């Protein structure tokens, strides 16, 4: 049995036609199912567990990167197959998973090419897309073997799981697609901030890792899958083969 989790923003009229076309195609494939609309305060974990109890075998997330991160960061521990139908503008993860935007995504879902994916683990919760620490005075220890610091002081840290890391430097745009099997940390020290009143970043330092400890004397903000919290010390790990996901042939890993 298929259960479809629709994000709240899909209520907007501009998505109506795509959703209708998707629902028709899913009915044609014989994989149409119950539709649940996610609200801001819906607990994804409880919802998914409840649906599993009622007999759901596949949970399909319908929305964008934020929806994907919101659901899976809470429900990654649930033992069920996940699918994804990307709708909307902000859909970088779908590209990594090889799932096309809109109606064509139904073909990928119907083919059921399943793969186990790794997810990030930070202070007892999962993160799916990215972890972001804005420029802060942080020190980082990798795999209990080496420490990384900056000569300029503040550093920005981005840890990518499924969402690609994009930065512009020397008039060029760089895109790094993270590979499955490890986490990639992108560190960007702030070069100038006072003169131009704007943070200028150095080209990023890249470190693949299995475990990382980020600490600071003062609390620093941590953003994971749309949730922001203030921490003094965080441990980031890779949870191997945590979720079973329907992926496309053109996936990036």
């Amino acid at each position: 049995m298929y259960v479809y989790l629709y994000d709240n923003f899909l209520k907007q009229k501009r998505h109506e036609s795509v959703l209708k076309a998707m629902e028709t195609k899913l009915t044609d494939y014989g994989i149409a199912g119950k539709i649940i609309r996610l609200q801001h305060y819906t607990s994804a974990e409880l919802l998914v567990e409840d649906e599993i109890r009622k007999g759901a075998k596949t949970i399909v997330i319908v929305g964008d990167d934020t929806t994907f991160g919101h659901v899976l960061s809470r429900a990654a521990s649930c033992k069920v197959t996940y699918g994804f139908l990307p709708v909307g503008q902000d859909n970088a993860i779908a590209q990594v998973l090889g799932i096309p935007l809109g109606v064509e995504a139904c073909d990928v879902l119907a083919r059921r090419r399943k793969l186990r994916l790794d997810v990030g683990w930070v202070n007892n919760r999962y993160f799916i897309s990215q972890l972001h620490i804005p420029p802060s005075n942080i020190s980082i220890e990798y795999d209990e073997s080496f420490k990384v610091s900056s000569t300029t002081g503040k550093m920005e840290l981005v840890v990518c799981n499924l969402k690609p890391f994009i930065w512009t430097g020397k008039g060029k745009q760089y895109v790094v697609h993270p590979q499955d099997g490890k986490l990639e940390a992108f560190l960007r020290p702030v070069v100038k901030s006072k003169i131009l009143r704007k943070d200028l970043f150095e080209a990023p330092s890249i470190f693949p890792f299995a475990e990382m400890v980020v600490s600071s004397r003062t609390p620093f903000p941590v953003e994971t899958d749309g949730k922001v919290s203030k921490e003094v010390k965080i441990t980031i790990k890779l949870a191997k083969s945590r979720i079973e996901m329907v992926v496309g042939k053109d996936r990036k890993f």
Partner: protein
Amino acid sequence: MFKPNTEESYTPSYNHSTQPDEVETVVGPSVVVEGDFASEGNILVKGTVSGNVQTGKLLTVERGAKILANVKAGNAIISGSVRGNVRVEERLELTESAQVDGDVVCKILVVAAGALLQGKVSMKGIEIQELHPDRKKLSSRNKFKLASDVESEENQ
């Protein structure tokens, strides 16, 4: 009108790809790494590393970068400074701005004019015949000749 080309710019024969997709680990210019640092993929050092560096693939130390410990790599291009022993499985390339203070072990060594190297260089695959066995043969033949001469003299 046109300035004569007085300076020959040295370009390493290995083209280290600057495409971020192919580089596994990058240590940026204002980043300091303290401790032993190992990677399975290519390493590009632009900053400072105070600890052993190890990779099975290509290590690139850019101009201005510093490594203050031993280095082990599959291949290496050094344009910065290394204070420690360098052990490379295949090819080690020292560009014009390279400074190495330590012993070097490699299979192929390329040194550009201007590179500074202070230490013992050991290279695998040397097949120069030893001189001592030939000398022994020569001396034994001489001895044999001497003995035969003595015998002929005695017969006479």
